[in-house]
């Protein structure tokens, strides 16, 4: 079986500095800069995905306008986005909420604060779990 290649990643994060940090970490992990896109909240992310779906969404939860929980609910209503993997990157540590997110299709979780190399690992793990399922 050929390994699925992640060609584009959407960073959904309200902090402009953290978007830059994540972009930099993705670059260091080997992701091409022209395959990395950004959104400042869940609504911007849905708008962006309506134009061009991405392989992976790195999703903050605590954001203004539309938070990450609502984004996950809204994404689940859109069948055309079913192939897009969602990885939560957040300070959220409540086990019940994280379990609910997994039940809604979230593929991975990375708790802030994280080290840059952790990002690549969580993306690869999410894709590997999809291949194994």
């Amino acid at each position, binding site marked *: 079986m050929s390994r699925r290649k992640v060609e584009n990643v959407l960073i959904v994060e309200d902090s402009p*500095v953290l978007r830059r940090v994540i972009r930099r970490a993705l670059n260091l992990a080997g992701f091409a800069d022209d395959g990395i896109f950004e959104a400042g909240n869940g609504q911007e992310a849905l708008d962006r995905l309506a134009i061009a779906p991405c392989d992976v969404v790195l999703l903050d939860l605590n954001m203004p306008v539309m938070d990450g929980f609502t984004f996950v609910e809204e994404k689940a209503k859109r069948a055309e986005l079913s192939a897009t993997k969602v990885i939560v990157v957040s300070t959220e*540590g409540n086990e019940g909420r994280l379990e609910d997110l997994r039940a809604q299709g979230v593929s991975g979780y990375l708790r*802030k*604060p994280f080290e840059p190399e952790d990002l690549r690992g969580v993306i690869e793990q999410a894709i590997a779990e999809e291949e194994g399922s």
Partner: protein
Amino acid sequence: VTEGTKKVATDDLAELVIGALERMAFVLADRVESEPTRSGLAERVAITFERQQDGVVGRVLLDADEAFIRELGASLLGMDSDEVDLDEVARPALLEFANVLGGEVVRLLGGAVEPFKLGLPELAEGGADANDAVRASFVTDERGHLEVTCVFPA
């Protein structure tokens, strides 16, 4: 965390801050017992947290000087401190660090099991002198100063 009151002990707060700085931005800091001169800590941000079971609300306040926020922004983005723009990088970096610390404090308070709602980090004024507060001060390797205060409801 003390079992009865569910408050963060000062030592726990200090360990949490030092660990988060190192993990998030590779910034090395030491706790200092004597508080730095408050007037030099011109940057203040805050984040609130609410325990959803009973609506109890607390707040984490960060007071920092320019050297600290420059160092934080520079370390996050791999820049030199003197290249860091205060509005574009340094202050947003402090806001994001407040977000991270808010999440860590909630975790210490039992957030893995009890649901809390974390607010959005914001610039703040006043409020650090509440009676029921825990405070710790830090100096980084590059002489940046940070003071972190957890304010609990009376």
